[in-house]
């Protein structure tokens, strides 16, 4: 084998050979009682600023791998067990990129995870060099699936779908309550989520009969939300739509409580806190009746409840990305089962034609179009009592919305 600058074709050849080799290795193992384990790359930001989220995601993947292996592994591959190859993206795109290289050379059949959009953008691109199937767990930026990468699949809904659903459900919610809310104040963090969302809401809300009184941007981290609260108080809106990360939303909710500001509803979108059990546990009063449109699991599914119990038994909070990663690994296992092969092209093909419905998300059967799961949708949640309940869509709801909020 020649090496050098122009090793493009050699590496492609090498790749083809090696994945062919892997398939050949898999074939005889078919006949053995115990097939060789299949390595699955689990990439999460396990260290750095996003370590908390990464650990939550990892927990979901681990649980799914255990479930699959306990149920007899991948049957079409002779009951081969899944083996986790863990990658730490170190909360940066460079880290994600480097770990994809490592996972690839470790011989993983696919990679699941990423969490943050910048990591997902870098990691999917790195994996595409090797035609290595990549299932994005969260990464809401729609650019992830708009670059035409054949290897990239996103199971969860993107930014566009989430915001559109949030708007539709807001109208539905308001109409059902007799249209108590007419005026709105938007509060958003000035980063990727917040700003993009505010722009969209500013364009869409007036068309749907809402009057935007003010749009207030704040940085992350913000040292003080008192001014934001003051402005809200002055405008006295019926509805508050915040989109912030955890710390800032908690600050805002607490400040509003201190300032006795009580709008008819707080309707947040992709908010870091409103659908977080930690917030509910630490500030039950400030959290009460806050609504959110976000990723969530299907509360009616037994597997989801079982996983939640398992996580909470360890003294940890059950978050949506635990559920998403759990589902993504199941999705991959289903693809492996149908591909009956560890060949990357075949797995990619199996993912592209997936109709997998055994996940724990409120999505219905999986159907990928240009790498995006078309069945994916967010749900609306509301803090009620000591729990976070699903209030929309009706098909998955386990509670009725409380709106307007009782004074």
């Amino acid at each position, binding site marked *: 084998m020649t090496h050098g600058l122009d090793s493009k074709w050699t590496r492609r050849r090498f790749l083809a050979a090696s994945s062919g080799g892997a398939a050949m290795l898999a074939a005889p193992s078919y006949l053995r009682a115990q097939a060789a384990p299949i390595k699955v790359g689990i990439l999460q930001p396990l260290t750095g600023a996003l370590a908390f989220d990464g650990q939550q995601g990892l927990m979901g993947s681990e649980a799914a791998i255990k479930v699959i292996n306990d149920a007899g592994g991948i049957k079409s591959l002779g009951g081969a067990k899944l083996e986790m190859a863990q990658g730490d993206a170190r909360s940066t795109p460079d880290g994600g990129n480097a770990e994809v290289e490592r996972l690839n050379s470790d011989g993983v059949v696919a990679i699941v995870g990423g969490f943050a959009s910048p990591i997902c953008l870098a990691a999917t691109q790195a994996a595409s060099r090797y035609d290595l199937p990549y299932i994005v767990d969260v990464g809401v930026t729609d650019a992830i699936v708009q670059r035409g990468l054949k290897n990239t699949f996103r199971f969860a809904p993107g930014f566009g779908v989430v915001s559109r659903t949030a708007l539709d459900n807001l109208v539905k919610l308001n109409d059902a309550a007799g249209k108590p809310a007419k005026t709105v104040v938007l509060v958003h963090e000035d980063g990727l989520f917040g700003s993009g969302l505010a722009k969209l809401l500013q364009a869409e809300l007036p068309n749907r009969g809402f009057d935007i009184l003010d749009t207030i941007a704040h940085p992350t981290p913000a040292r003080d939300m008192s001014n934001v609260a003051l402005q809200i108080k002055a405008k006295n809106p019926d509805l508050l739509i915040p989109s912030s990360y955890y710390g800032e939303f*908690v600050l805002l909710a607490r400040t509003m409580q201190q300032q006795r500001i009580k709008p008819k509803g707080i309707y947040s979108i992709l908010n870091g806190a409103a659908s977080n059990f930690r917030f509910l546990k630490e500030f039950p009063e400030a959290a009460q009746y806050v609504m959110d449109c976000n990723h969530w699991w299907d509360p009616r599914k037994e597997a989801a409840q079982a996983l939640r119990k398992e996580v909470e038994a360890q003294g940890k909070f059950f978050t949506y990305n635990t559920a998403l990663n759990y589902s993504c690994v199941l999705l991959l296992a289903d693809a492996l089962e149908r591909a009956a092969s560890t060949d990357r092209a075949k797995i990619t093909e199996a993912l592209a034609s997936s109709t997998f419905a055994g996940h724990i998300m409120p999505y219905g059967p999986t159907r990928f179009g240009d790498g995006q799961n078309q069945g994916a949708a967010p749900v609306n949640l509301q803090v009620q009592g000591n729990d976070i309940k699903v209030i929309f869509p009706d098909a998955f709801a386990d509670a009725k919305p409380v709106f307007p909020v009782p004074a």
Partner: protein
Amino acid sequence: MLAPDILLAAVLNGLMTGAVYALVAVGLTLVYGVLHIINFAHGAILSAAMFAAYFASLAGVDPYIALIGLAPLFFAAGYAAQRLIISPASHGDDQNVLLVTLGLSIVIENVLLTAFHSDTRSIDVPYGFASVDLGFAFLPLPRVVAFAVACVVSAALWIGLHHTDTGKAIRAVAKERYGATLVGIDVAHVYAVTFGIGAACLAIAACLLLPSYYVNPRVGEAYVLVAFTVVVFGGMGSVPGALIGGLMIGVIESLTGLFFGESLGQLGIFVLFIVMLLLRPTGLFGARA
């Protein structure tokens, strides 16, 4: 158009936030005034102090009570850090001090990250939601307490610097390092005491912040750049300058935030910072640079 009562409330908010800025900045300015160094580990020490207060509160000790224990503890830690690490490692070179404190801040911040991970935590105290009703505005009680204590601490520090022997020694070293050595002042001790006082101020600030704020390993960063601005604004080395500068920065931030949006409010601080550095690095109240 903004109603006058909102304007007034915003000014009050700014003053209360500013008092905490002042307390964070007092330590920084004192260290600068005496040691002529910028302590880049200031923000990281604040994060560490907030974690200390957080765990005290988990153990059932109210942050305001924990303050009594944490201030001396951080004084001792600061004293030791200067005496055992910063001073020997930097060989008396100011640029080395910059790098050593930068190294310390990287270590502290990342050890916190290793130990407690990156989650954001906050505590719920019984008085967390109590507020003082002024008729036109509610002032949250924890912030009123923070304002009062910050002012008292700054004043006490000023009095201490002027009317105690240690204070006089500190001022002597600040004015004339070699002269102070000649009259028998232990300069290394004074340096370490100053550093300790800086750390103790941070411990107090941490206990005051915790009831209304949150803590994570990077929380100090949000305050330290503002504290630099306050120090430059009030004049490097001036304690009254830090107090007045802190209050003014608090109000400026609050009002620019109100008029131009919160994001630009922070931008305003940095622009002010750069302009001050470029045009009048001695600050509004500082005489020496």
